[in-house]
């Protein structure tokens, strides 16, 4: 192979990231006729967190890396725009907003390039784990008032903490590996995760039995690549890589939907309580979460720009989708 791309994901082989990477590897290696080889490092073999891995992407010791928004927030704080609750209604809207030529994606790509001095490219944003929902060990949560006083695990980042506080719960920063034990023993009473993560980590065994499908945030997966490496390829191979990321994105869109079926079945079979909030209840959640938007645009570098881009693209996407729906349902 003329080019070896070293790709890393800090998750494991059960994760959507891995599904995406496999599709990417397969597509790129075949479409380039073997000119590109993709070497995958799953887990923390090369680097173990967003800061460290993005450093690797910047200097070229890692070529491709998938980060969650919180992992990249230390250098690209504006990517937390994806964590803003209740902005995108469903998968159809989200996938349109994240399409590579949407205004939102164009500005995100530009902001990443600017923020890294041209060292890092944002290739695509896929999904990792569906949507975040509130889950807890105590009781069914139907309205924001039910969240009152619950100790909810968050990562150490401002935005999720502001959100949890806005809903009246108390944010508790617990490292991911300690979370199972922390549920079991009551150090925290809830979390905001996708169902597949909840099931992969066997959290229901630790008492996490109540899930409210409020879908408060899209679990975006940001795929970064070293710009120098990308530019070093001839144009036709760059096209292959870009198309490869399109394939990857589609795979990560689809994978959580497929995987979550079994996950939800297992959750309910294990005695779990799955609650779908009514539109009114969801509106109440959105209203309670309002302080987060103000906080984000006022306090995060590039926050206003990212927020405007997202809201704008959401409006466009909804308009188009609603028109399509109207035409299709004639």
């Amino acid at each position: 192979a003329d080019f070896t791309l070293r790709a890393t994901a800090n998750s494991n082989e059960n994760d959507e990231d891995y599904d995406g990477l496999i599709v990417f590897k397969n597509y790129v290696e075949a479409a380039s006729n073997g000119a590109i080889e993709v070497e995958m490092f799953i887990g923390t073999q090369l680097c173990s967190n967003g800061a460290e891995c993005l450093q690797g992407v910047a200097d070229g010791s890692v070529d491709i890396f998938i980060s969650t928004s919180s992992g990249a927030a230390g250098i690209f704080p504006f990517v937390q725009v994806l964590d803003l609750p209740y902005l995108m209604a469903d998968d159809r809207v989200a996938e349109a907003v994240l399409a590579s030529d949407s205004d939102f994606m164009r500005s995100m790509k530009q902001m990443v390039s600017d923020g890294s001095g041209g060292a890092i490219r944002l290739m695509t944003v896929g999904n990792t784990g569906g949507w975040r929902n509130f889950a807890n060990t105590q009781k069914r949560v139907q309205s924001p008032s039910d969240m009152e006083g619950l100790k909810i695990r968050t990562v150490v980042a401002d935005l999720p903490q502001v959100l949890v506080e806005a809903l009246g719960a108390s944010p508790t920063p617990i490292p991911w590996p300690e979370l199972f034990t922390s549920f079991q023993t009551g150090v925290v009473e809830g979390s905001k995760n996708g169902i597949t993560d909840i099931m992969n980590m066997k959290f229901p065994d630790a008492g996490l039995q109540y899930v409210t499908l409020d879908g408060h945030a899209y679990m975006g997966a940001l795929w970064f690549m070293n710009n120098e490496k990308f530019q070093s390829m001839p144009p036709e191979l760059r096209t292959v890589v870009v198309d490869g990321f399109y394939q990857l994105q589609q795979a990560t869109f689809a994978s959580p939907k497929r995987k979550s079926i079994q996950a939800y079945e297992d959750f309910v079979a294990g005695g779990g309580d799955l609650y779908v909030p009514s539109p009114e209840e969801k509106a109440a959640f959105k209203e309670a979460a309002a302080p987060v938007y103000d906080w984000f645009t006022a306090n995060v570098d590039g926050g206003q720009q990212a927020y405007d881009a997202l809201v704008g693209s959401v409006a466009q996407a909804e308009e188009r989708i609603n028109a399509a729906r109207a035409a299709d349902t004639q």
Partner: protein
Amino acid sequence: MLIWFLPAFLFFLLIGLPVFFGLLAAPGLLLWLNGQEKDITLLYRNVYNGMDSFPLMAIPFFMLAGEMMNRGGITIRLVEFSQALMGHLRGGLAQVNILSSILFAGLSGSAVADTSALGSMLIPAMEKEGYSRKFAAAITAASSVIGPIIPPSGIMIIYAYVMGESVAALFLAGIVPGILVGVGLMVMVRLMADRYDLPPAHRVVLTGTQLGKTEWWVSFVLVRLNVALLIWSFMPIAAEAGAAIKWGLLAGALLIAHGIFLGLRRVVSHDFRMVCKRAMVPLQTPILILGGILAGVFTPTEAAAVAVAYAIFVGFFILRSLKLSDMPQILTNAGITSAVVLLLVGAAMAFKTVVSLSHAPEQLAGFILNLSENPLILLFLINLLLFIVGMFLDAGPAIIILGPILGPIFVDLGIDPIHFAIIMSVNLTVGLATPPMGLVLFVAAAVSRERVETIAKAILPFLAVEILVIFLITYVPAISMTIPRLTGFAQ
């Protein structure tokens, strides 16, 4: 090509390069020869990120707590307590030595601390009672390895971190194996007592022991609280019972506990009671650490910080045996020692990166599976390998180097990761007491002023027991897995 960093590392290690530099020099050299200069940056970065870790913080904390307890005169209390319980047995002081090690293990995470603390007290005492010095030093060294097997344990913290396991699960898994090593040694001492006519024993209970008022009352409350909580935790209380009922039952349990102690009072002598009381305050440490972790009140790192707070509380306010002027020295020692360990862990994480880049585990797995496909035989071979490595290398570095290479292979073979962690930790911990390189042997030699070679010979029967225990642990997973499974910390 890159895989040559393993023999290069072995070479550097054997000619005496400090492990820290070897872990970086060998991979760095091969990356450079391989034209992968960019990846040398990856090495440096992983040293930094390897050290930047919350779970690792437990290492300096436990070291600090152990050192403060030891300086604060807690060792003597544990020894007296062991003496009151076991001093009357055949080979009395040897048994006391072992029991003290087990108790001390609950406070300290280090075998070396155990050897120096207990050795400096018990070796002279055993000599005075007629034991040979080499025997006294040997049993001290042999029983000290229990220190890092029973929680807390620096070695297990390192293993859990490097291999991504739960510290709490490893701690819990170590309890029974640690006690088993102790019991094995006790049986051996009992056998030797007949054979070699070890000095006859008499129950040693200090007479006229006085307790300060604070300590008396604190122990009075603590011992009743311990028993009451134990009774209470076995009471069938419905989960939805109100707080009032729960507190009421706890009060009831306290009354029962008090009653029990009133009854016991008639059976045992005043001096015996005093000795037990004096041990109550130090013995709260393991209860606090394990109880806290089990009840989910804190993570192991937080438990370690709480242990430090407890040590401060005990040393300054209850026993009043520590002075503020002792603190700089204690903090400096704990800081320097943990700095060395942390750098080593960081270098190991960097080394691990190159292990991945070179695809070494896949290649080694192929080699190992060629030897045999039977996990039982492979486990035997791996114990042999670990034992040999342990003869030359300290447990921490050995775990750091071999864990990432061997762990995945055996987990793929169906061995539970926690079980494998215990096999590896216990085996390499026993290596601390084996010649030619055995940290614990060296310390025992320094403390007893007996030659290392002499102690190394005298320790052989005890090593035999420990090897037996290693194989028991290897082939009976339930020994290590039962407690973590029952408490839900392992599946």
